[in-house]
């Protein structure tokens, strides 16, 4: 701690931060633009100026940029003094010279950092009378709008995009007052984290096109703190609504999980909530096989009767439904009749993950990932399968740079200086995957088939255990086991990353072995296992069995939010359906399974319902809906609870809080879930928490075309939130904060006011709670394979996830779908020869009507692998265990499509 004087006040502060960060942390209002808590300081905008005095006798002082000023003992500063504040006023005055002043038509208006800072810096009267610089805008893809005239040249966008997110297709062009931020030519921004530009840009240059399409000002949105269901990481989001439609997803700061950033699937993938495919009513199939819409009441009576008459009732849970819904279903059908509905590998990996979370091996949070200094990725395509993790890993490799900076006494916040000093020095990150990885540019990639990845993992573990690299394993020229072992054992914090994206439990077992071996010598060892979906862990905690065995008959099968056709081969599904007399589906969107059901109950989406999600680090987080669903649509747990009541089950449970307490009671392992967020009884100064800002305008007018009487706002009995601007709307606990706002800070950057330190935890703790702690040793696994399949020409279909296209729900959002790849088969020349295909050909399946896969040939695909994207249309290929692929002789390439493009974002 160091003593400094600010405006005559003596303060004791941390000297590892820069002055701006320190002052903001103290709650001071000091304007800034180019500095960002995650991007550090470069001193471009000059907005954060203060005056520094040499000593007590120095009365003049000199202007310094607080973001570029280190904290030194005895330093004397003035923030409020005239010299400092005049300078800041001039900065904003100059920044605004060329600004178009188009706030009324700007999407950023009302939550604009530039607006806030303009007011804060005190510039009002405009004296500039000359022409403004103007720019042409670019098409940047379906997600992000571009309005360059609003740019204030703070450089945040390129620093975020290039330096932080590793993108290379957004640059600063030209110079002086003509600097332009954009691409070389119109085109889709390729980085998977481009959407954060919307929040990183302090004004309205980069805007959210999804929001723009049905624009609403921040102050008119009704919002709720939610959890992203796009993958297993559980990023915190703010979901916002108006007129019964989802309007946008914004980042919701969580100091342990996503911090300031989301991936583009999470940000732009929730449009399915407004989809035409939503199931709007209850439906019962009549005797003619036709669906009939029916009232909730009638449908419940009908289902109640089915349940009473049935001898065998089974329930199939869902990795994307809430814990609550899965639990009520399990209660309704009985533990023995409850199945997770996960595919085999996913179920097995889920169980492995659960065992790790209960063991002595540590699973770090996303924020903690950034501290690890040697990383081994085994078979996990993070960017496409658990995207936000890739962004954290990209920061972790900078630890080497940070070490060099510490040695050279360059403060870590001096971003440009640290990068310059370090050049491309990086902490090691070994990437053992089957296809090109977006992290390859900062890692040490090796391409292996999934079996070989597992084998490599086992060898690494063995070598660590025996303190020597196994020569046998080392003869594989594609990877250098010894160097991996050396890096991991020399690291102060080694991290192993794996998951289900290769659909290989074997790889996960190998990863566990490696972590186990390292953990024996190093307490700081971390292991991350990513699963396919947001609540895999919840459903795995409730049931180990995945699907009833083939041929097991059921009078009634209730399937919760789960399109089983996505997970199981068609033949297996048909076989199963044969044995189900009454299929009841609870889901939000029409899918292959719901169209086969006898009864369908319309489920609310995450945007309309409350529920608990357990992410891949075992963190239980509560997600709240922004609005009441339409008509009879209800949260799945609510449907199921009503069915339970009809069966005299869970009679005491009316509200979600009782449900949570029941779960905690029955499943002590999950007992902490009740603490994931305050319950419905929570009050702030006697008030519930508002979902709308207190500037919400026009509520009385919204439905004036229907009736001039303003309807009563809906009540929310299940949470401490209101569907209204009435209520506390500033200082709610993080897990209940529907939006961030603080006087003078209308943008998301107001989060500064709610952190214990800048970029740190939220003042009242980060939302969510880690459920599992354990000290038991995790099992040691033995490889079930004999050796690399050399000489073996067995063809193997290897799944490849795509951030856009592989996720069932987000893929129903138009913008996401437009970026999804079309099916392809990627193989190396050798495999192609074995399969007798070349570029321009396609591969087909012997049976079924799955579309053929156009062939694309690349040298670095592992031998024997046919890499196939995980898409709705390619599921049939991915359910194959052995190769029954052959050339499609009838195939001709569609017109104009000469070559298959396999990369992620250039459709």
């Amino acid at each position, binding site marked *: 701690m160091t003593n400094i004087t600010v405006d005559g006040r003596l303060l004791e502060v941390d000297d590892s931060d820069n002055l701006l960060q320190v002052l903001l942390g103290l709650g001071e209002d000091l304007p800034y633009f180019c500095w960002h808590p995650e991007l550090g300081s470069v001193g471009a905008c000059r907005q954060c100026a203060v005056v520094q005095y040499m000593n007590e006798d120095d009365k003049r002082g000199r202007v310094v940029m607080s973001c570029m000023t280190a904290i030194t003992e005895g330093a004397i500063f003035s923030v409020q003094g005239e010299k400092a504040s005049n300078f800041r006023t001039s900065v904003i005055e100059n920044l605004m010279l060329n600004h178009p002043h188009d706030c009324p038509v700007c999407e950023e208006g009302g939550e604009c950092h530039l607006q806030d800072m303009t007011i804060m810096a005190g510039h009002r009267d405009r004296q500039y009378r000359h022409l403004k610089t103007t720019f042409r805008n670019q098409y940047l893809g379906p997600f992000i709008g571009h309005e360059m005239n609003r740019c204030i040249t703070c450089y945040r966008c390129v620093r975020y995009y*290039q330096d932080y997110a590793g993108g*290379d*297709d*957004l*640059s*600063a*062009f*030209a*110079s002086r007052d003509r600097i*332009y931020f954009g*691409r*070389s*030519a119109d085109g889709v921004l390729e980085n998977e984290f481009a959407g954060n530009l919307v929040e990183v840009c302090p004004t309205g240059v980069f805007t959210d096109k999804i929001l723009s399409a049905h624009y609403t000002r921040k102050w008119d949105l009704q919002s709720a703190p939610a959890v992203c269901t796009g993958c297993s990481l559980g990023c915190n989001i703010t979901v916002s609504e108006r007129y019964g439609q989802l309007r946008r997803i914004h980042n919701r700061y969580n100091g342990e999980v996503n911090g300031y950033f989301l991936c583009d699937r999470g940000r732009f993938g929730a449009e399915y909530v407004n989809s035409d495919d939503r199931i709007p009513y209850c439906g019962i199939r009549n005797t003619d096989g036709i669906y009939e819409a029916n009232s909730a009441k009638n449908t419940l009576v009908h289902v109640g009767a089915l349940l009473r008459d049935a001898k065998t009732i089974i329930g199939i849970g869902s990795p994307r439904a809430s814990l609550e819904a899965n639990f009520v279903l399990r209660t309704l059908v009985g533990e023995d009749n409850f199945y997770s509905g996960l595919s085999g590998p996913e179920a097995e990996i889920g169980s492995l993950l659960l065992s790790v979370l209960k063991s002595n091996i540590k699973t770090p949070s996303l924020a903690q990932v950034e501290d690890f200094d040697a990383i081994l990725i085994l078979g996990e395509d993070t960017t496409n399968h658990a995207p936000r993790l890739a962004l954290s890993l990209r920061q972790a490799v900078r630890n080497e740079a940070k070490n060099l900076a510490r040695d050279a006494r360059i403060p870590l916040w001096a971003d440009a200086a640290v990068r310059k000093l370090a*050049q*491309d020095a990086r902490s090691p990150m070994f990437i053992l995957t089957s296809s090109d990885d977006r992290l390859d540019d900062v890692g040490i990639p090796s391409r292996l088939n999934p079996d070989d990845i597992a084998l490599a993992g086992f060898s690494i573990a063995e070598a660590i255990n025996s303190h020597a690299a196994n020569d046998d394993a080392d003869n594989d020229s594609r990877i250098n086991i010894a160097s991996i072992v050396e890096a991991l054992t020399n690291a102060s914090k080694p991290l192993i990353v794996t998951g289900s994206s290769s659909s290989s439990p074997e790889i996960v077992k190998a990863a566990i072995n490696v972590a186990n071996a390292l953990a024996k010598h190093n307490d700081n060892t971390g292991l991350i296992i990513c699963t396919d979906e947001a609540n895999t862990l919840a459903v795995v905690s409730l049931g180990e069995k995945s699907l009833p065995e083939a041929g097991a008959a059921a009078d009634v099968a209730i399937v919760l939010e789960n399109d089983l056709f996505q997970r199981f081969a068609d033949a297996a599904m048909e076989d199963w359906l044969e044995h189900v007399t009454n299929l009841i589906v609870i889901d939000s969107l029409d899918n292959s399974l719901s169209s086969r059901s006898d009864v369908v109950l319309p489920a609310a989406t995450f945007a309309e319902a409350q529920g608990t999600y357990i992410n891949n680090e075992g963190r239980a987080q509560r997600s709240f809906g922004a609005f009441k669903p339409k008509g009879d649509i209800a949260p799945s747990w609510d449907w199921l609870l009503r069915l339970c009541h009809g069966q005299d089950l869970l009679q005491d449970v009316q509200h979600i809080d009782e449900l949570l307490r029941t779960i905690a009671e029955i499943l002590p392992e999950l007992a902490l879930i009740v603490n994931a967020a305050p319950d419905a009884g929570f009050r702030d100064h006697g008030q519930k928490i508002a979902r709308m800002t207190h500037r919400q305008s026009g509520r009385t007018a919204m439905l004036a075309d229907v009736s001039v009487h303003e309807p009563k706002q809906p009540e929310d009995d299940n949470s401490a939130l209101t569907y209204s601007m009435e209520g506390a709307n500033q200082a709610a606990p993080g897990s209940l904060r529907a939006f961030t706002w603080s006087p003078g800070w209308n943008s998301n950057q107001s989060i500064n006011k709610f952190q214990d330190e800048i970029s740190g935890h939220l003042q009242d703790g980060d939302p969510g709670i880690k459920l599992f702690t354990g000290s038991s040793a995790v099992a040691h696994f033995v490889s079930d394979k004999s050796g690399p399949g050399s000489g073996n020409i067995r063809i193997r279909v290897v799944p490849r996830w795509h951030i856009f296209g592989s996720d069932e729900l987000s893929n129903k959002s138009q913008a996401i779908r437009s970026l999804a790849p079309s099916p392809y088969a990627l193989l190396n020349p050798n495999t192609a020869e074995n399969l007798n295909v070349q570029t321009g050909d396609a591969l087909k399946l012997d049976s079924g009507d799955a579309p053929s896969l156009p062939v694309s040939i690349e040298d670095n695909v592992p031998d024997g692998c046919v890499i196939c994207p995980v898409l709705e249309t390619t599921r049939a290929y991915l359910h194959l265990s052995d190769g029954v692929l052959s050339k499609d002789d009838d195939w001709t390439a569609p017109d104009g499509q000469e070559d298959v493009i396999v990369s992620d974002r250039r459709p």
Partner: protein
Amino acid sequence: MNLAEENMISALSEQEITEIEEEISHLPNRQSAAIDALKIVQGYRGWISDESLIAIAKILQMSTEELDGIATFYNLIFRYPVGEKVVLFCDSVSCWLMDGDKVCAAIKRKLKIDYGETTSDGKYTLLPVTCLGDCDHAPAMMIGEELHHDLDAANVAQLFDEPGEKAS
């Protein structure tokens, strides 16, 4: 070969590639040769077309955006076609003091172009330049790589060829 044909050449010549690789050979990474590479190619082609830019970016293993950000920063890298000779007229203070404006006006009259424009015969492009370091012989300018100084509005026009037909 005329400009239009020149523009069609997309890939780099062997000579260009050799020269670029030579620059790279004494630098710690390929990207550091960005400016040298742009200058080499411009030396042969007069300007940097989109095709050239893409080709150079490939050689340097960087994105087009990154390279274009560099190319557009510098005054002497031309991202638009220029004439056979670029006329760099010094508009800095010492030349201005010596009636540089009048000399420049005479040039513009003769070539019938303004700053930033190319004569219709494709011979000259006129650009302003910062002080050429010839202030004791102001006003000064460069035609191509040749420095001309002690210019005089009355006879500066003689330094330029008569406007001809558009080269075919």
